[in-house]
């Protein structure tokens, strides 16, 4: 349902500091991404569980690499290693 060409989808919760941390890194790396906002209620986040295995946010799906992951520290490390200076991609 999105017209975005972004290969990275970020599942996020409005005002969640861990999500904003990931957004900052995406912006710093000049990566385009599509935001999907989910509910504050953990139990209502089945879509996140389907894509990442957990209901926690942030979670990302990177179509470039097939990577699906959650936990902001892991995501930041992955993005930096993959797209940062001297990164794999």
């Amino acid at each position, binding site marked *: 349902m999105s017209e975005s060409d972004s290969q990275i989808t970020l599942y996020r919760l409005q005002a969640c500091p861990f999500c904003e941390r990931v957004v900052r890194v995406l912006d710093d790396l000049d990566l385009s991404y599509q935001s999907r906002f989910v*509910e504050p209620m953990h139990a209502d986040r089945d879509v996140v569980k389907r894509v990442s295995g957990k209901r926690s946010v942030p979670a990302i799906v990177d179509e470039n690499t097939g990577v699906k992951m959650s936990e902001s520290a892991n995501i930041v490390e992955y993005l930096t290693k993959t797209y940062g200076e001297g990164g794999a991609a």
Partner: protein
Amino acid sequence: MELDFEVVSLPDSDHPSEGETAPDFTRPLVNDEYWEDASLSAVTAEGPTLLIFHPMDGAFPTTYIWNEIDDRGFAEDVQVVGVSISSPYEHKGLLKERAEGVRLFSDPAADLATAYGIENPLDGMTGVTEHRPAAFLLDESRTVHYAWAAAEWPAFPEYDEIEAAIDELV
């Protein structure tokens, strides 16, 4: 409904009419699981689309409109998307109760009411403008095949006309 007084008339509306192209826009589009920015053109590209503008979520006309659309099963024949000034959180609540298979755009500043010529500044709610009830049946290129906008307040879509237009288009 027969009333023994005149209901409030709204000023003439300058909405897109049959044969014209509906203005494109991008707003958060809410489904039953999440919301994300989406354009109308991305939605219509997927197939014929019924675009319904409605009062804020919680108002009784909104409830009546979606109940009737559910009863008639329009979402089984075409894509159905709504627009109101309500936030994505309120849209999620609406979708839990009704509007089966429908997605809802959130347009809090009612800019789309201006773009579609269907503004409804609300008496007694200073600073709040919402969308008049309105219905547009669009094909894949956003060409309008049926258009209706409220001329009175309140007013409800002409469901039989919508149904006939859907039957003709799909």
